């Protein structure tokens, strides 16, 4: 297992005067996996990424990087050697406005020692991946924020590194571009790249990551696969929609649904809750996550003449709440107070469990 480790953070700490931006992080990233680094803004994600890129020096702890089959401790003496096989996109990249993507990407590829004869071809290939071939010779100052972000991601993979580190790669991108970046990340994984991806958007991370590390206030509060995190939660949330919007009093309807599904959710009575989101018109039922219970709930709802047109258990659903609770235990969420209190109880359990 140790031979698989590509990057290791060991007790990594960064202190700015009296403020701990990153505190005692222990993390291992294995070959070929995508690790999502999740946390709210200011949690310490970018600081960690910058330490990995040697833009900041750790106050304490170590960073180990695999190169030529050997895991080596990152230091000023070997940083060129160890970082040579990593492509970085740190924070929102700012490019020189009066140059073209072709010029700047060629420069970056050459800096990283990409074979000179292949540089031109490589630039065109990478630009084509992002669908920006028509813009390759236009000045970057005319680009939108999203386009600049794409050039930033392109610059990270220009030299074809084995490890790609992306800090908030989807920031400022439109949905189409986000999908392109996500697809690109999955393509990179497919060809064996190791990817360390930071984001404050759980959805973005849950779409691609094999494992997720959650950081808040500089501390790592969870690190596991999405499935394991959900398994640790042992609970999940059913989302369903009715063919018509409820006509009767929604409170009565929720009460009725709660009555009929409570025996089927597989969780203790005091943790049960059913909720309705008026904006999305989606009902939510908290249950133990077992497919059998899920099926029983669906059958019961149908038997009780609820005309359901959409019934699902979104993967990010519970995790999103789990994440929000972990990083902001006192935060306000969309759920009603009753549901929220129940969730709070559960999340407290979870936090204890994960820690």
């Amino acid at each position, binding site marked *: 297992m140790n031979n698989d480790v590509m990057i290791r953070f060991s007790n990594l700490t960064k202190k*700015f005067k009296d403020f701990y*931006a990153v505190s005692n992080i222990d993390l291992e990233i294995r070959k070929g996996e995508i690790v999502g680094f999740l946390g709210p803004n200011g949690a310490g994600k970018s*600081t960690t990424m*910058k330490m990995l*890129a*040697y*833009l*900041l*020096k750790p106050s304490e702890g170590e960073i180990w990087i695999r190169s030529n089959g050997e895991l080596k401790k990152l230091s000023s003496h070997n940083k*060129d*050697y160890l*970082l*040579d096989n*990593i492509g*970085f996109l*740190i*924070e*929102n*990249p*700012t*490019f*020189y406005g*009066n*140059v073209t993507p072709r*010029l*700047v990407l060629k*420069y*970056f590829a*050459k*800096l*990283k*020692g*990409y*074979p000179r004869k*292949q540089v031109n071809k490589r630039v065109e*290939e990478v630009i*084509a*991946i*992002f*669908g*920006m*071939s*028509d*813009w390759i010779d236009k000045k970057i100052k005319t680009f939108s924020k*999203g*386009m600049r972000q794409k050039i*930033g991601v392109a*610059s990270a993979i220009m*030299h*074809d590194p084995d490890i790609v580190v992306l800090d908030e790669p989807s920031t400022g991108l439109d949905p*189409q*571009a986000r999908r*392109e970046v996500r697809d*690109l990340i999955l*393509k*990179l994984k*497919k*060809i*064996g790249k190791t990817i360390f991806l930071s984001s404050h958007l759980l959805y973005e991370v849950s779409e691609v990551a094999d494992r997720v590390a959650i950081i808040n206030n500089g501390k790592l509060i969870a690190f596991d696969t999405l499935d394991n995190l959900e398994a640790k939660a042992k609970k999940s949330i059913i989302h369903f929609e009715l063919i018509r919007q409820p006509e009767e009093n929604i409170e009565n309807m929720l009460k009725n649904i709660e009555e009929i599904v409570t025996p089927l959710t597989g969780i203790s009575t005091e943790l049960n809750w059913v909720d309705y989101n008026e904006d999305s018109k989606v009902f939510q039922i908290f249950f133990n996550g077992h497919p059998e219970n899920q099926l029983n709930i669906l059958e019961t709802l149908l038997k009780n003449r609820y005309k359901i047109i959409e019934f699902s258990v979104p993967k990010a659903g519970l995790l999103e709440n789990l994440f929000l609770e972990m990083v902001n235990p006192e935060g306000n969420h969309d759920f009603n107070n009753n549901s929220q209190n129940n969730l709070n109880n559960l999340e407290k359990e979870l936090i204890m469990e994960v820690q």
Partner: protein
Amino acid sequence: MLSNPKQDEIEIEEFHVDRQKVGLRRALTQIRDTISFELRRNLNRFLVILLVYIGFFILGVLIFESAEALGLPIAADSAEYVKGYLELNFGFLIVISGAAFGGSIIAEDYHKQTNNLLFPKSRKANILIGRLIARYLLMAACLLFFYLLVAGITLIKYEEIPLTIFNSFGWALYFSFAILSFITMLSSFMKNTSMTIIMGIMITIIVFEMIPMLISMSGVFEKNEFPLFFVLTYYGRIVSESLAMPNPRYSVETIQMMDSEPVETMTWLTPSEIGAFFGILIYISILLLIAYLRYKKRQSKGE
């Protein structure tokens, strides 16, 4: 608009790339590539500065032609004519171009956070050397252009070009590198490119010029008997003075205050050639060393 219909067809191929190994050769390549990139990136800036040089040259021509038309004394020979142009505004032009080319050399990386893109790709020393060389080449090209203009008009007016113009050009190149080094050092401390340019111009034009005056007023050196070797801009005087070396390096004036005895005081006009060579060399070495150490130590946002 951005989407390329062909992009779904594009697959990332898995292939092994033999990148150039890290080491001296890579470092030299990085410097070369940085020079090439910086030359292209600063092309617009170069053209603007070139226009400023042309503007100042035209201004010089107008002043000297007007003076001649008004019957004021004109330069006795070609060397004096060239010297006239250099004394008129050339020092200012060197400072302006030094600030324009050197102001962003380090500060920009932190101001615009381009450091996040660059530093994981190359050592700071390689970036700094490449940038310095590129910007110095552009600055030197501006100087050359100005000298060609001055040589051209001197040839028209005097049917000869003084050979000492080559000495002067050599000193101009050397001194301009010292100015660029000073601005680079300043840039390593500043957070903003514009502020670096403004501060650079103010310090070189105002502060450096005030130092000799302040020293003279303080009375530390009774007769100003020591050359102003500690003032960077003092060395710039050799650029014009070298047209007619050897010159008296100083003049002696007698100053008498109201109730005091008359005092002889020296005004330093130019450094000696050997003094200027070593003085500028020491300045460049110290300034670039400070700039490099500061650049090396300076960290990203959050420092």
